[in-house]
């Protein structure tokens, strides 16, 4: 065979084996695609037939059909397995022949050429190489730096409190208490005495007779707070309720799902707070100020006391606007006492049975709308954010006596926002928002831990706290997501800004409500917008998240209930028929709403 013939032959073999391989490969691909499209092992058609059978168990015809289909499906599956196996061997064989033929073909056709010699100059080539190496090194370093600075270590923002598994609400959790009494030697007496002692400990008397005993009392923790609704915007003021089965449907005019409704004696924009079976509100008009306690199961008034005879209290209350009033701040309850602050600068504490414990005035506020910042309580400290025309100030009062534990000056202007508590790595921080600083304070000492200047104007929205991040906003300023550990602004946005309503974040989303009726949700971490809704009435009240839903009442008294996720589906828009400014308070299966004249309890039947 001469050279030409060899070349020709190898060429032909090459083409034939090439076409063969391509053919086998496409068959294989087709097989893969077919299997992907309809997996015979988990056939949908078969499933449907079996489902049909369950509703008609005696259908012999259907049974035969299923059996036949199942046989076919399994045949198809095993045929396909066989096809894949055989196909890959054929492809390997074809590929080998092709490579060999191609190789021989090119070898045969290769003409002996005169070595061209290197036409590359040594030094310029090396200069070029060094330049490109520099570029590669630079690119790697730049990429790593970019990746390093661009990614946040979320492990650090983990705080156990938020992730802890929740027992279903309404279930009391009891831990086994070991015998601890040292004098429990006599086995006869162990059970009874110990039980008695421990029961006393766990039940914790609500009104200790002896004031000295109170000093050693066990303070309720966050776990207890979240079983209740003890402050403005729920436990810690974070806007998240842990209660479940919250109603989504009611109608005040027809009385649908309204468990009870009572008239309040005095108006007030504050929101109700709950401890166990008691619900508390405050109210005020030009002359009198009042704290009321209702049975939250039936709406019965348990006690109501006028707030008076407080040393330092002004004879004529300061001027306030109609949309603030003297009872705008929400009360706080810690399981022992309930605390209220009024636009006069009066703070009063009652025990849960209505006994007055202490009262004082911390100075009449210079405030052209009226004082509105709500109280927070933790352990033995009652936190008062008291930013007035005289400047920023914050106090922690001893819950037993009302004396100041600390009283600090803050370098910010007057504000109307409320403090928020947050458990940051096991330590409780107070987070506040005012012009110009969003700041965090150590609750024990009042020491400023961090601050970042990003607010301006008359700040009324309280900050939101979620997952280690702080969210602050105000109209004409920005919406800022702040990482307090640095501190730095992770992202900001100025598309929708709240005037009064406070932002809330949970489930990875951040909700902001504006006074012109827009409700918008962002990704809490990145600030990407998920959804927005525009409603005809504006929002002064703040959104709360409960049971996976956003609850917010607008100025027309319509409660908008929206799923707290990326979809933002509207679940319900029940009406009260009265203007709504206060926030709802949640309990298991119930929602409590307060208007200027009434208190509602809503429960789905």
């Amino acid at each position, binding site marked *: 065979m001469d050279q030409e013939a060899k070349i020709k032959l190898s060429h032909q073999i090459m083409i034939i084996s090439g076409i063969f391989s391509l053919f086998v490969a496409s068959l294989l691909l087709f097989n893969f695609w077919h299997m992907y499209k309809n997996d015979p092992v988990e056939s949908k058609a078969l499933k449907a037939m079996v489902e049909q059978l369950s509703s008609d168990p005696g259908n012999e015809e259907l049974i035969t059909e299923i059996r036949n289909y199942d046989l076919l499906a399994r045949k198809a599956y095993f045929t396909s397995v066989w096809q894949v196996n055989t196909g890959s061997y054929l492809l390997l064989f074809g590929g080998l022949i092709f490579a060999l033929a191609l190789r021989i073909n090119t070898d045969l056709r290769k003409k002996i050429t005169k070595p061209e010699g290197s036409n590359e100059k040594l030094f310029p080539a090396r200069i070029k190489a060094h330049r490109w190496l520099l570029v590669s090194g630079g690119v790697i370093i730049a990429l790593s730096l970019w990746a390093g600075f661009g990614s946040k270590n979320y492990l650090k923002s983990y705080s156990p409190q938020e992730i802890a598994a929740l*027992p279903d609400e309404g*279930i009391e959790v009891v*831990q*086994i208490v070991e015998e601890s009494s040292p004098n429990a030697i006599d*086995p006869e007496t162990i059970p009874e005495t110990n039980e008695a002692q421990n*029961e006393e400990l766990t039940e914790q008397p609500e009104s200790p007779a002896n004031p000295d005993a109170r000093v050693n009392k066990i303070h309720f923790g966050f776990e207890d707070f979240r079983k209740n609704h003890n402050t403005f915007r729920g436990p810690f003021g974070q806007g998240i309720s842990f209660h479940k089965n919250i109603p989504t449907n009611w109608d005040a005019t027809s009385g649908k799902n309204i468990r009870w409704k009572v008239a309040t004696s005095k108006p007030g924009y504050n929101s109700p707070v709950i401890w166990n079976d008691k619900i508390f509100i405050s109210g005020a008009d030009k002359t009198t100020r009042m704290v009321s306690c209702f049975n939250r199961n039936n709406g019965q008034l348990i006690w109501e006391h006028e707030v008076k005879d407080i040393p330092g209290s002004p004879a004529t209350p300061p001027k306030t606007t109609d949309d603030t009033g003297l009872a705008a701040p929400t009360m706080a309850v810690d399981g022992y006492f309930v605390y209220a602050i009024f636009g006069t600068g009066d703070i009063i504490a009652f025990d849960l049975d209505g006994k007055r414990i202490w009262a004082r005035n911390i100075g009449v506020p210079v405030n052209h709308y009226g004082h509105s910042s709500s109280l927070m309580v933790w352990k033995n400290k009652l936190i008062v954010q008291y930013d007035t025309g005289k400047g920023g100030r914050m106090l922690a009062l001893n819950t037993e006596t009302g004396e100041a534990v600390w009283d600090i000056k803050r370098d910010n202007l007057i504000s109307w926002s409320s403090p928020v508590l947050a458990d940051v790595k096991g330590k409780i921080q107070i987070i506040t928002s005012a012009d110009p600083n969003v700041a965090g304070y150590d609750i024990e000492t009042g020491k400023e831990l961090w601050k970042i200047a990003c607010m301006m104007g008359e700040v009324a929205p309280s900050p939101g706290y979620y997952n280690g991040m702080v969210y602050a906003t105000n109209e004409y300023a920005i919406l800022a997501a702040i990482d307090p550990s640095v501190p730095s602004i992770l992202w900001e946005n100025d598309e929708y800004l709240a005037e009064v309503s406070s932002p809330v974040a949970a489930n990875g989303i951040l909700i902001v409500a504006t006074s012109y009726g827009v409700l918008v949700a962002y990704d809490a971490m990145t600030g990407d917008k998920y959804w927005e809704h525009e409603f005809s009435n504006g929002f002064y009240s703040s959104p709360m998240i409960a049971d996976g839903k956003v609850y917010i009442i607008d100025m027309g008294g319509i409660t908008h209930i929206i799923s707290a996720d990326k979809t933002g589906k509207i679940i319900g828009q029940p009406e009260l028929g009265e203007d709504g400014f206060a926030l709802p308070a949640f309990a298991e299966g119930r929602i409590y709403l307060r208007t200027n004249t009434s208190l509602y309890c809503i429960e789905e039947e």
Partner: protein
Amino acid sequence: MSKKGLSILIVAIIVVIIGIIIIDFIGNNALNRGGNPYEYNVDEYKEVDPSLIHYKETKNIALGDIIPRGMDIFKGDIYITGENFLKVIGIHGVQKLNISLEESGICVLARDEFIIAGLEQEVLIFDHMGKLINSWKPDTETTYITSLAILNNILFVADAGNRRVLKYTTEGNYLGEFEGKSESDDQHGFIIPSPHFDMVVNEFDELWIVNPGKHAIENYNEKGELRGFWASSSMNIEGFTGCCNPAEIAVLSNGSFVTSEKGMVRIKIYSQSGELESVVAAPEKFQEEGTAPDVKVDENDVVYALDFDRKLIRVFEKKLSE
């Protein structure tokens, strides 16, 4: 193709390969791996009509770091046994007694005079101070004791390993045994594929024994003769499913049965004749494929369920509205 063109092509292919590797590496993570195409799905059977659920969970007693195996409720106290202890706990969580056992306790029964604990192969009797009064072992190697009951001063010991019920006096004297086999019908006797074999004595002094392999609850007299039974086999809420259910039973004061199932864990109430009356807890309340909780009832018909998977005693009370 020119040499330069080829070089560019080569570099381009290399870049594409690196790109594919990086994209595949980054893309293959917990967020986009997808679900299980071969999921074993019993979801449709897990849904329970809420109107059937007449009970509400009101209290949990967290057991902490122990491995419980069985419990009894007697006069307001919880008797609980497991690896390797027997404890008495008040309803408020105060531990009143703690006896350590050499082996794991499996079942416990409390009466005024004593506390009886069943180990795998041994019966122990304690007084209420925790002092061991008596103990004995049935003399077979395959014994596996799962339940205890007392009727007319006879102590019935369920031996799941040998598919029989042993009878003793409370002093430990052997009185006899029976395997549930009956001549009058074609019942096979006890079929016990797994160590779940429960007995209970109701207010009317009737001994009811579960035949789990048959999905049946059977009534025996103290001689061990079958007097009656009912069975209910279904994946749906009306029946029992799996190879050995109901795993645990208890009785209410009116004679109705509280049953607890494994696999699809659910606690239900059946009338004495075997009609489903209501549901205490639907499967959604328990871990998937969980162990059947031990169920007991106190004098007020409050249902106590020992949830092994979550290590909780869960208290269910009848909803007030019903």
